[in-house]
């Protein structure tokens, strides 16, 4: 599905990384590992065509990504290391906005189940700004279920999560791959998740 070939990125005449290769097919998980500042987020953004690579190419379904960009965007969900939930609004409002904005087919009972699994069901009428970092992070993951797309690109998904939430994420990753989905995620630690490819930056 995604092939990254000899990708290099320079910013302000500084080499961030060079000649990175990876391939992601359905049912696979790729992890990007490296220290802080090694270019994990930059690589994810380059794959999303947000950052222009200085060398190399990215392919989606056999075609150059740039020529197939909006088809790629139709299949990808990106969760950044920032809190994209609108802090002034309640959880319920955020979920409603996402559901409608992403034209999601997910029904209310599926969302209720997901909220219970993430232990967020009691905060529905609470403003996102009042939640803890970990709870906000879990709310971000709800977008994965709402968008219901096949490729997940996640930037440091396990940071700020407690052990039980990390276990839950591992299970979610396995379930997604079992349904022919694929995941690229970055981490500076060893998350203990079975991965099919490891890219060290």
């Amino acid at each position, binding site marked *: 599905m995604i092939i990254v070939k000899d990708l290099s990125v320079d910013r302000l005449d500084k080499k961030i990384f060079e000649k990175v290769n990876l391939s992601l097919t359905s049912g696979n998980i790729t992890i990007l590992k490296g220290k802080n500042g090694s270019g994990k987020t930059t690589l994810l953004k380059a794959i999303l065509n947000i950052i222009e690579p200085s060398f190399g190419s990215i392919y989606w379904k056999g075609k150059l990504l740039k020529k197939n960009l*909006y088809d790629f*965007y139709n299949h990808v969900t990106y969760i950044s290391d920032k809190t*994209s939930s609108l802090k*002034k609004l309640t959880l319920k409002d955020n979920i409603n906005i996402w559901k409608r904005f992403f*034209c999601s087919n997910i029904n209310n009972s599926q969302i209720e189940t997901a909220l219970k699994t993430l232990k967020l069901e009691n905060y529905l009428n609470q403003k996102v700004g009042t939640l803890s970092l970990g709870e906000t992070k879990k709310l971000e993951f709800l977008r994965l279920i709402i968008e219901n797309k096949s490729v997940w690109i996640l930037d440091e998904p396990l940071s700020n999560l407690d052990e039980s939430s990390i276990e839950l994420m591992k299970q979610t990753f396995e379930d997604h791959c079992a349904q022919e989905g694929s995941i690229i995620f970055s981490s500076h630690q060893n998350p203990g998740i079975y991965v099919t490819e490891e890219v060290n930056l």
Partner: protein
Amino acid sequence: MKFFNKILFFYYREYKLNISGFQDILTNIIFFFVSIFIFIFSVGPNKETISVIGVAIVWTLLLLSSTLSLKKFYQDDFENGNLLIIHLNGFSYGFIAILKTFSHFLFVQIPFLLSIPIACILLNIESDKLMYLLVSFGIGSLTLSCLGSISSSMNLMNQRNFLLGSVIVMIFSVPIIIFSVGIINMEENFNSLINILFGILLIVFAINPWASGLCLKLSLENN
């Protein structure tokens, strides 16, 4: 159909955000009216003087008040990553700029449009001039929203100096002020001045998606 739904729910999102931040809109309008009072107190109680310069005061304060809201044009969505999410949902940068411009017009400029009649009473502006003022502001405010979009997107690349964007808006809004105030004072030339205002709007509206889109792209790339 799916794309139109996305646009519709983009505005639902903007509506929810603006309702939750209603105090910001209210503050802008309060600023507008407090500034009118300051002008009235400084000019003095002479009705005729206030009536003559009233339209110019309204337009100047509308411009200043609308520049107050420019900081929030893209900033929040840029910082929390929503700009990127909206782009990944199939909207090009230029199209996001158009959508946000209309959102600014609807949720920031329209409340001013509604408060103009009250301002006219305070400044003793004749009721027959009100219609001209509303028409000129209707066109001029959309032009200001387009200029605001350009300057706010430029500000994303220059986080240190917010005032620079406001200065750009104010410089480029000089022609809008000239022709908008001119409409009210030269009623016999109404059609030709409205056409000029409309022409300025079309030029800025055409430049907006290109300029703002490019700035959004560059700022996300360098974030």
